[in-house]
């Protein structure tokens, strides 16, 4: 089964799921960060002009340039939940491969190895490694043991529908319950005939056909949503 899911099982048999992020969103995140860094460096270079190009100003500027180039991603990743501004904009973040937050050490390793990923020009090595392993890790990620995953936005709670709930006639597994709730909540996007088609599959559970089946399923969904 092809998927972008990354799963870690922690003691107690609990599965933690995350969605790994591929090259396209990461490209945009990087581009945004690049622009931000560019603006910062531009402003700094303007500020350093009155200090003299080769004197104190130049030296100060070079030190700052170094710090920004190397520490910008590290500081953001460590202190801002694994997100640089670009990553934040794309809703992605860096995380250890056991799904714990990145620490200073891992973030440093993954960002120092950018030089290797950059080879032979503009991150070709990084792109090739990303596409040659299942979790889209570039060389720096592999060395540091980190992943880039998408941050789940907390889903806005859908309004609870105003219909009379109905207890299901037969016990259902949790996944089945959620798909019935999904059916209820996504029905505005589904066409009428498609809804009937889906409801007809569950004729054995609802004992209704067609439109009645759809209504019945909606009521069961409302019951699973907590209406009583």
């Amino acid at each position, binding site marked *: 089964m092809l998927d972008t899911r990354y799963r870690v099982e922690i003691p107690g048999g609990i599965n933690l799921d995350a969605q790994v992020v591929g090259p*396209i*969103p990461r490209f945009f995140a990087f581009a945004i960060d690049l622009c931000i860094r560019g603006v910062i460096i531009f402003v700094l270079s303007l500020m350093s002009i009155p200090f003299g190009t080769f004197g104190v100003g130049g030296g100060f500027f070079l030190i700052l340039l170094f710090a920004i180039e190397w520490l910008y991603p590290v500081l953001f990743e460590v202190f801002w939940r694994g997100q640089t501004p670009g990553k934040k904009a794309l809703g992605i973040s860096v995380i250890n491969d056991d799904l714990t937050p990145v620490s200073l050490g891992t973030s440093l390793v993954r960002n120092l190895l950018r030089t290797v990923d950059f080879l032979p*020009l*503009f991150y070709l090595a990084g792109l090739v490694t990303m596409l040659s392993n299942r979790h889209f890790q570039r060389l720096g990620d592999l060395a540091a043991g980190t992943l880039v995953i998408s941050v789940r936005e907390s889903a806005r709670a859908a309004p609870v529908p105003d219909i009379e709930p109905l207890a299901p006639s037969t016990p259902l597994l949790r996944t089945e319950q959620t798909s019935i709730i999904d*059916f209820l909540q996504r029905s505005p996007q589904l066409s009428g005939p498609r809804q009937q088609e889906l409801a007809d599959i569950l004729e054995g559970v609802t004992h209704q056909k067609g439109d009645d089946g759809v209504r019945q399923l909606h009521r069961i969904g409302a019951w699973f949503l907590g209406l009583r």
Partner: protein
Amino acid sequence: MDLDKLQVNACTRSGWQAVDLGFQMARAWFRPLYLAGVMAMLPLTAVLLLLFWKSPFWALAIAWWLKPFWERLPLFIASRKLFDEDAGVWQSFRSFPVKDILPWLLWRRFSMQRAFDNPVTVLEELRGGQRRQRLRVLHGKYSDVALGNQFVCFCFELLVCFGIALTLDFFTPESLDLKVYDRYGDLTLVGEWMFTLSALLAMTLVMPFHSMAGFALYLNRRIELEAWDIEISFRNLVQRKRSDVTRSTGLLASVLLAGLVGLAASGGAEAALEHDRSSASDLIAEVLQGEDYGQEKVVRKWRFKDWSEEVEEESFPEWLIEFLEWWEQNIQWSTDFSGAAFWLKLLLVLLFLGCAGYLLWRYRGPLARLGGKSPEAAVPEVLFGLDVTPQSLPPDVPAQVMRLWGEDAYREALGLLYRASLSRLIDKYELAFRASHTEAECASLVKARGIESLSDYFWQLTRVWRELAYGHRIPAKERVQQLCHGWSRELSDEPH
């Protein structure tokens, strides 16, 4: 369309996640997709290259313009692979999808969402007004993602092309005398060929990813609009109920048969009926739905324990604002900075000293241990819950052991012998037992001491003690007597 055979996990994804899924698809099916792309492209491109051998960029431009044509075969194969049908490259080559190709090579060549729109033409075979209407439904909120896909894949193509060309240029030996640039800095014919071939290679390499990303976006939209995931889940539910029924009837029949033949007692049969697997799983599902178990808690963020929720984490720190205001008011920009270097130096030195100080303080524990000998580990007084101080022992240990044994206090008797041994070993042989050691680790420490008779004895004693303590196996009285003699021989104070 048989959703049971769907090879991707159907669930609702965001646009970017769908594109990532497309990249996974391209990874999984890379060989057939790549081969199909190359096979569709190779014959005509070879002819073009021969025709324009003096200016291969023309061949490249034409091949690039014909991209919508090359991309169709990989897409066709992927649509078969998606439902686990193995479409051989040759076989799909014969049913090459060429319908409605002309618009795609003329005005639609400028479309920025080609990979996303392609499936509607190639797989659904819609055209004209029908196609437009379908696209309006499909595009929805994903136009920007489709655009992003096109843009980034174009960048990747350039990147791969120049990467290959540059690497080739780097690794061409000087002696071959292949000049890429002439003395005016223009590309030579060799250079043009090098870039053309690199670009063609880059095009074929990136194409599977680009078209699969668009295809996955299209799929994602259909999963959303047609609720494929819900259909799969509903079908599984029906399947589960049906197999539950067959299982329970099968079990019922076998139980009845067993009852008839008289192999099973009727009580046992009833118990089996109560706990057969299908009804049990129903029961479990019912219990899990109840108030006690049916609680779900969604935690989406990492946070520290006891972290106050009120802290506004993204707020700008107050002191920084104050500092910036102070900076603005009090620091005059001027060109005289003779003192600035000194202050900067001082600042850096102070910063360094601060860091060094902090590190020293942070790692004071390990550093202290580095310097001197590690502090003497305290002699343990209690091992495995046994008091091993010399004061706790009776004057004549073997006699006391045998007396306790006579009173049937086996555990106390052997416990006394064992802890007396440990105590003596600590006292007399200065063995560094720690409270964290196990019995076997103690025994191997004794062995490491190098006195063979002693370690033999202690191994025996440990084994007997462990069997009694944990296995509740009482040894023979002779064995205990033997151990007592051994103790007097090996561990008592009197010279033997």
